[in-house]
């Protein structure tokens, strides 16, 4: 089911100051296509969870509308929206077995919707098989590992075959190894069921790795929406560029003079705009050690982590971090004269942003 948000806005009265308005979601106006896995991404407190709560109906918008398909659900209570929700802490009922937990939503149904006992069992089993916990049906939640609990929560959310599945920080309570496994699971389950799924995360890597689409938010405002690679390669502003990518993008103070982009006295690209101060973002993988390269840094050290070699160096114009980090192929030869190292740069990995409003400057 596709989801349409129409000028969706949610404002609160601040809890700390009764005369202050907090805009958790500011004028969201976009469409989420049917059957996709969408990562809603942003730093903590940017309004991701509020967005999720608005979609599932636990909160009502201040203004704007929400459509599921063609149906206006803005004023529908959560139980009539046909959504499944998985909470960050899973919220499995601790006193009920896995089976009873999964059956719970089905037992809520009344009247004509109510299934026979056998049909319920069958559906529950089906959901359990899908998330591969069908052998654990009689256990209590506290007898399960974090990853298993997570899957039970997903099964419970899926058992009513919802039109939309919402996951709030689904991986944040898992350890690193489980996180990798579980995110693949989520990917697989989404593909198998084809249910439009939105998950919230503050971990860009998580969102990038499994989403069909990512939506980047900051302070209640939508920054950019698109396929992960597309957003990564073509960030609309400095925030998105900095938020995506690990190691993070290197940012320098620079300027445009005569349609050329300079960091200090080094020319690192061209932009056909009038002279101005700019921020220059250079992805770590943009650097190619090159004796004749235009960009100069003070060499510090080389760090090797498995397949990657990163060159750590310094540049007085760098504003993102003390170190400038360049990731290069392991067999790359280093030119290193008097402590100065030179790079040439892949132009499509260099992004220039206006100092004024931090938006990207193309060409």
């Amino acid at each position, binding site marked *: 089911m596709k989801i349409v948000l129409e000028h969706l806005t949610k404002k609160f009265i601040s809890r700390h100051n009764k*005369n202050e308005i907090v805009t958790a979601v500011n004028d969201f106006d976009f469409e989420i296509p049917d059957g996709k896995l969408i990562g809603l991404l942003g730093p903590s407190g940017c309004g991701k969870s509020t967005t999720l709560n608005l979609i599932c109906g636990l909160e009502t918008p201040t203004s704007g509308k929400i459509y599921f398909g063609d149906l206006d659900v803005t004023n529908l209570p959560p139980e009539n929206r046909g959504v499944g929700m998985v909470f960050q802490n899973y919220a499995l009922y601790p006193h009920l077995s896995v089976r009873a937990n999964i059956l719970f939503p089905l037992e809520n149904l009344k009247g004509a919707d109510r299934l026979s006992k056998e049909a319920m069992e069958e559906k529950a089993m089906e959901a359990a098989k899908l998330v591969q916990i069908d052998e654990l049906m009689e256990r209590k939640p506290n007898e399960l590992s974090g990853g298993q609990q997570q899957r039970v929560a997903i099964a419970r959310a899926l058992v009513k075959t919802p039109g939309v599945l919402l996951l709030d920080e689904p991986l944040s309570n898992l350890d690193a190894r489980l996180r990798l496994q579980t995110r693949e699971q989520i990917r697989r389950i989404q593909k198998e069921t084809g249910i439009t799924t939105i998950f919230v995360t503050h971990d860009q890597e998580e969102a990038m790795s499994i989403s069909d689409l990512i939506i980047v938010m900051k302070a209640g405002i939508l920054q950019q929406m698109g396929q992960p690679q597309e957003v990564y390669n073509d960030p609309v502003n400095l925030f998105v560029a900095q938020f995506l990518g690990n190691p993070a993008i290197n940012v320098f103070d620079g300027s445009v003079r005569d349609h050329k982009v300079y960091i200090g006295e080094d020319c690192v690209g061209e932009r056909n705009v009038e002279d101005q101060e700019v921020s220059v973002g250079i992805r770590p993988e943009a650097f190619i050690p090159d004796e004749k390269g235009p960009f100069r840094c003070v060499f510090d050290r080389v760090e090797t982590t498995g397949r990657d070699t990163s060159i750590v160096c310094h540049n007085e114009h760098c504003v993102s971090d003390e170190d400038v980090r360049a990731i290069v192929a392991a067999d790359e030869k280093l030119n290193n004269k008097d402590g100065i190292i030179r790079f040439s740069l892949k132009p499509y990995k260099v992004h220039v942003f206006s100092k004024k409003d931090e938006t990207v400057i193309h060409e």
Partner: protein
Amino acid sequence: MSEIEQIRQLERKSKMRNAVWTTAVFVLLILWAIIVLFPFYWMLLTSLKSYGSYNSEYVPKFYTLSLTIENYIKAFTAVPLARYFSNTIIFTLITTGLMMLVVVLSAFAFSRLEFKGKNLVFTLFLSLMMIPNELVVITNFVTITNAGLRNSFAGLILPSVTSIFYIYLLKENFEQIPEELYKAAKVDGTSDFKYLWKVMIPICRPTIVTVLILKVIECWNAYVWPRLITDDENYFLVSNGIQTIRESGFGRENIPAMMAAVVVISVPLIIIFLIFHKKIMEGVSRGGTKG
């Protein structure tokens, strides 16, 4: 209308959706609040009515305009209310002080000192927590009587000192202080007693204050033991005092004066409660029980 007003209204509206429910909830809460508060209001009101006007009201009035303190004067002159009061204060202070000393020392021993038989003694203490007071009060009565301590503060206080539950509460709290602090103090050559006094007690002050308040409340309301062990009015505590007033004070029907006495003995605790209500409620919910 400003934007902030609009949002307020929207938030209110979403709450109001269950207007019927909310109303029912508040009706229930207000009803119970009235039932709780009414006796207090009534005692205060009655205590301020003169003897004459109280008795002339066949249907009692819910307010009075002619306030009088004659009942309070009467309460202090016709019966030895001041004496009950000072007795209770002495009893409360000494009992609470002694208890605190005993409790702190043993909680420290249980939480920080290592000695043979510690766990056994502690288990024994815990199992004693389940013994109802009614079972031991009989022998205590005989013990105190045989010791000739009836109608004395010693007789009132000594059996009221023990509070195993507070030892337990404080021990748990002491144990939360990191062991490293103790070791560091030992390395610096701090004596155990100094460590207890200068480090543990200040850190655990919130719990200690809670225990103090709870014990003060318990002492102030003590009735059963004082009643058994005193029949001399000079050693009555407020609870016994109020019972005597009920049975014989003021002539049987001077209800305003009785109410004045009730107000006087209720006020100290109510003041303590109003000041410390957060602490008291927290302390009680951590495991206190009534009585």
